[in-house]
Every structure is written in structure tokens, then in C-alpha cells.
């Protein structure tokens, strides 16, 4: 038996949030128009809010071949394998760009055969290609296979239907947190900083940006492995989260680069705050499996008032230049 006609059924069941239009005779008691659970921080599903994702037909073909990044800065990103050949690598012009340590420029490719199968091939990469943990030169992919390229980048291959693909894309596009550190991601930072610049301009309020980059982080990754590198990033992010105020926006800007957007504070005090964060990172002792690690970071601080062009990009650019100054000046310092 086929699924019932959904649009017709939908009408019969389309109740919305409990009716608020109660006509009480006489003065009404103060009553809330909100559902009783509105105080919950969690989203309680509002009763029968209607389908918000278009309904797919009853028969749904799993005909979308997708690669999903499972880790890294772009965890959750979805690539659809539409072409007869898809290259994976670090080069700027490849279809599936994975900018990570140990990835070759053209690392691997996935070929769609004429009969609709998908074959993964290593393109003589330095660090190899793995499927479900096994090193391969050439392998046919099955749905749910896990593809690893280089030492750390992991992707999932899957055959999905249109609705599942749409959902995966929407979740990624509307996500705002970096999966590893839980800091806001770069996309959110760009959006938020633009709105903060507009606000600061309109209300003549202060707006500053702190940017920092971990010193010699590549060395940690190379000598201790990327798992250790990941732990360092998480510990540092956790520490910074403890130091900032609720309204500050803390984001991961790049591999080992972070940004804090600070509102309403005089420039000199923002620099002092950056110095506190610097000291605090320097004092961290990060326990890894069999040894302890210490890290430092180089900082740049700037304020919107200093920018000739009042834009998020200009603000980030100046901050980045100052951070670079800290790097060439000997690292583990603040330039403001």
C-alpha cells in the first residue's frame, strides 16, 4: 500500500500552536500567548508546526553520491559527486578541496563508471589513501564507506536521496560552531562582525578585534601527531572561553588562528585583556598521553576607530598585520 496523500492529510492535522485568540467575557486574566514550555532553553517542538521541508514523493531514490567531511575546519561540508571524475586535494582548483597538513595538491580522485559505480584512486599522493582504515591504490566505494586522505582528513562516502542531501546541506550552512573547538566558525564570524561594524558605526560605540595564532603549532602536529594538535586546540579554546565575557564573540578563524570580537571597551583595555589571555595560554600545561605540552600564542589587537575604511574586512586585515608583527617580533606577545 502506498503512503497516503500527504498534502490532503496535512490539512486535517494542521493545528498550530495552541490558540491564543480566546475571547473571554469581561477583563481577561493576564494569560500568556506562549506555549507553556516556552521557558525551556531547549527547543520544545511547537505542537504540529507544519512540515517545513518540502515533502518528497513516496518513492525516494538514493541516487545522490555525496562526500561529507567528518573532521577539520569544514566538518559537515557536503560535496556531491556529479562529474565523471572528482579530484580531492589541496590545490585551489580541485572539486573537493581539503586544505590540511599532509595532503597532496592532487591527492586522489573518484571516478564514476558508466554503470554508475564509484571508484576511488590514489594519485600517487605522498601520504596515501585509506578506505575504512585500509590503505588502497584503487577501490570501489560502497555507501557509508569512510575515506581517509593523508594523515588526518576523513570523509564519508554515501548514497543518499534528495531530501537527505538537502538536510545535510542545510545543517552545514546553518551551523555556526567549529566541531573541534566549539568556538564559532569563520562563516558566523564574518556575518556577525559585519553586523557589529554596522551597529558600532550607527551608535558610535567601540568595537575591537583580537586575533591570535598558536606559535609553532605545525611542529606540534608534525612531531606529536594531529591528535595531539587537536587536543591543544581544544584546550586553548576552552581556556579562552573561560576568560571572555558572555557578549564577546569567540571564533576559530583558521587552522590555529582564533578571533575575539570585543564590544564597548577602550582600545587600551582590550590590549590589556589580550595580554591576560596571552599569559593564561602560556601558563597552560596540556597533558597529553605520556607527556605534558606548553604552548604560546602571538596576538594582534585593533579597533574600528583606527580603520580608515569601516568594514569587517578592513578591521580583520589590520589585526592580522599586527599579529604578524608579533610573530616576526619573536612570538608570544601582543601588538596593539
Amino acid at each position, binding site marked *: 500500500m502506498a503512503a497516503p496523500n500527504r498534502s490532503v492529510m*496535512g490539512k486535517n*492535522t494542521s493545528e498550530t500552536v495552541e490558540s491564543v485568540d480566546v475571547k473571554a467575557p469581561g477583563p481577561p486574566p493576564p494569560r500568556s500567548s506562549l506555549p507553556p514550555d516556552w521557558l525551556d532553553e531547549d527547543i520544545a517542538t511547537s505542537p504540529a508546526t507544519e512540515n517545513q521541508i518540502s515533502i518528497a514523493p513516496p518513492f525516494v531514490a538514493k541516487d545522490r553520491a555525496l562526500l561529507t567531511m567528518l573532521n577539520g575546519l569544514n*566538518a559537515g561540508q557536503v560535496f556531491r559527486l556529479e562529474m565523471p571524475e572528482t579530484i580531492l586535494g589541496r590545490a585551489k582548483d580541485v572539486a573537493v578541496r581539503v586544505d590540511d597538513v599532509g595532503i597532496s595538491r592532487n591527492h586522489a580522485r573518484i571516478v564514476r563508471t558508466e554503470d554508475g559505480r564509484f571508484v576511488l584512486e590514489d594519485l600517487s599522493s605522498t601520504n596515501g589513501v585509506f578506505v575504512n582504515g585500509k590503505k588502497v591504490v584503487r577501490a570501489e566505494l560502497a555507501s557509508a564507506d569512510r575515506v581517509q586522505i593523508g594523515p588526518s582528513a576523513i570523509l564519508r562516502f554515501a548514497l543518499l536521496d534528495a531530501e537527505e542531501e538537502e*538536510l545535510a546541506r542545510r545543517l552545514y550552512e546553518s551551523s555556526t560552531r567549529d566541531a573541534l573547538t566549539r568556538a564559532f566558525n569563520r562563516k558566523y564570524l564574518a556575518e556577525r562582525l559585519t553586523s557589529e561594524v554596522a*551597529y558600532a558605526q550607527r551608535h558610535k560605540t567601540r568595537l575591537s578585534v583580537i586575533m591570535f595564532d598558536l606559535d609553532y603549532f605545525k611542529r606540534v602536529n608534525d612531531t606529536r601527531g594531529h591528535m595531539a594538535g587537536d587536543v591543544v586546540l581544544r*584546550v586553548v579554546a576552552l581556556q579562552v572561553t573561560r576568560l571572555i*565575557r558572555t557578549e564577546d564573540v569567540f571564533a576559530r578563524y583558521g587552522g590555529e588562528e582564533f578571533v575575539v570580537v570585543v564590544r564597548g571597551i577602550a582600545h587600551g583595555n582590550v590590549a590589556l585583556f589580550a595580554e591576560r589571555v596571552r599569559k593564561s595560554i*602560556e601558563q597552560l600545561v596540556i597533558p597529553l598521553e605520556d607527556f605534558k605540552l606548553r604552548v604560546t600564542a602571538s596576538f594582534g589587537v585593533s579597533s574600528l576607530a583606527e580603520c580608515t575604511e569601516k568594514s569587517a574586512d578592513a578591521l580583520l586585515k589590520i589585526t592580522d598585520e599586527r599579529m604578524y608583527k608579533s610573530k616576526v617580533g619573536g612570538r608570544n606577545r601582543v601588538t596593539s
Partner: protein
Amino acid sequence: MAQTVRFPQVTPSAPPATSENVLADQRETEKLLSIPAPFARDHASLTLLTGPNAGQIFPLDVENVIGRDFDAQIRIDDGSLSRAHARVIRHANGKFVLEDLDSTNGTFIGNDRIKQRELVSGDRIQLGPKLTLRFAITDEAEEMLQRQLFESSTRDHLTRAYNRRYLMSRIAAEVAHARRHGTELGLLLFDIDQFKLTNDTHGHLVGDAVLRAVGDRVSALIRIEDVFARFGGEEFVVLIRDTPPRDAVQLAERLRISVASMTVRAEGAVVQVTISLGVGSLEELTPEAGGKELIALADVRLYRAKEEGRNRTCAATPPE
């Protein structure tokens, strides 16, 4: 002019092992260090594919009742579901079996209405006329990624306004900022009048079009720094920073008049809608009050606007 300041080092040789700055919480360290073993596909879950919470993931236990009931393990509050609609049982051999619990609208896998069937990873389950879920067996990393993506999503899929989760965290931040700096913070809460009637008369596709049209209109009228969010079914919030109450009321009136002048055409229907608004500002509240109290204040006024005949704004300062 940029200047480089080298701050004096704090006794670089002595490791401040007892300092509070040293990773305070041991438990958190352990969590950070526990990296899941790769490729163990032992996490069975259901993912919601439709509705306002599309993307939500439910890990599966031994017995999992899916339905509208409060005590259902997988509670989905949707009117088209039965209270206890179906259940998924994990058998001793590790297999998962889906059973319909004599639901009114039926349980389907693919095209088939089923009474009981073993699930295969990737199966699409449909409960009733419109709710679909995907069954999958994945590993911990994958399940975690999906959960994180869902939890960090901030936009409502239909209207592209911010969702309620984001709004609540953002209000907390804005209240903290306004308190610290002594600035003003206003909040508009509005609701589409007689929305249920629109839905019942024209169907929920038209209802969705109305929500989208109102969302678009409001987005176009507010400033880039204002936070516009969908709060519930047909309820929305606009959080406005550093704006005196009088200006907040003016904005509310602008939104109201603009929405009332709009005509929504969808699915052959032509609909005109109005909104009722409640306006509150942080300075009306006690110093301890936070975001929830601010919403509650606007809500009382929204309710009054409804009582007084809808299509109006209610605030401490009356609209001019």
C-alpha cells in the same frame, strides 16, 4: 600607529602547576583526550528528516517508543502521530526491528505499510502522512558530528530567521552587554493574527507561504544589527539594541503597517494578514531580570494587543 609591546614574562622557569589557569577541570581534560576508536559502527540512531527539528538525532536504546506521548523515548510533538505510534526494538542478536503500535495513520518503510520489519542502515521510515526519519548505524564520530551540526544550527529552515535556540543564547549575551554598559535593549514579540484560520482554510502550504512572506518583509525593514528570530509556530522576536523605547514602538508600528499592506499569493489563494505586537524594554525590569523576563514582558503586551482586537501594537509608551 601600531606599537609592539613586549610584556614582562612571569617567572618563565617555574611551571605554575597549581595555578587556576592550568586546565581547571580534570573531567574536561579526560573528555578532550578520549578520542573515539575509529570505524566501530555500533551507534544506531534515527534522524528526523522533516519538520522544524529536521536534523535532530535520536540514539537508539533497547526499546524505543516513538510518538506524541511525554514518556515516549523518542517524543515527536506532531499532531499526525499517535501517542505511541511505533517502536524500535534492539534484539539480543543486535538487529533492530520496527513495529507499528496500531497507529491511526500507519508506519511505512519505503513504499510499504508495515506491521513489523527488520531495519537496514539507510532505511527511510515514514510515520503517518508526513513525518520521515532515517535509520542509520554509524560510528561515534559521525553521530557526534551530526549532533554538533544540529545543535549549532541557528536558522529556521522555513523563514531563514534565527531559530529559538540561537535567540535565547543571543538574548543572554545582549542583556549582559546592556547591563554592563548601561545601554538600552528593546524586544518586539509579534504573532500573525488568526494564523490557524489561514492554515485551516487554505492548507499548510499557504500557511508556510504566509510565514515566509512575513519573515521576508520584516527582514527587509529592520537594521542589520537587529536580531530577528522565529520564536514558535507563528511567533517572532526582534531584538533591538541601543534603541529608546519610543523608537522601538515606532519600529513595531512600521512592521505592523507594512505587513497589513501586503498580499500573499500562494497555491491559488490570495491572503491578507495582520500582526499583533508587544514591545518591552530592559529598563522597565528590575536589575536582576534577564532575557526570559524581557520576553515575558513583551508577551503580556502581545496578549493585550490580541485582546484589544489584534493588528495593533501594545507597549508601555503608546504609539504616537
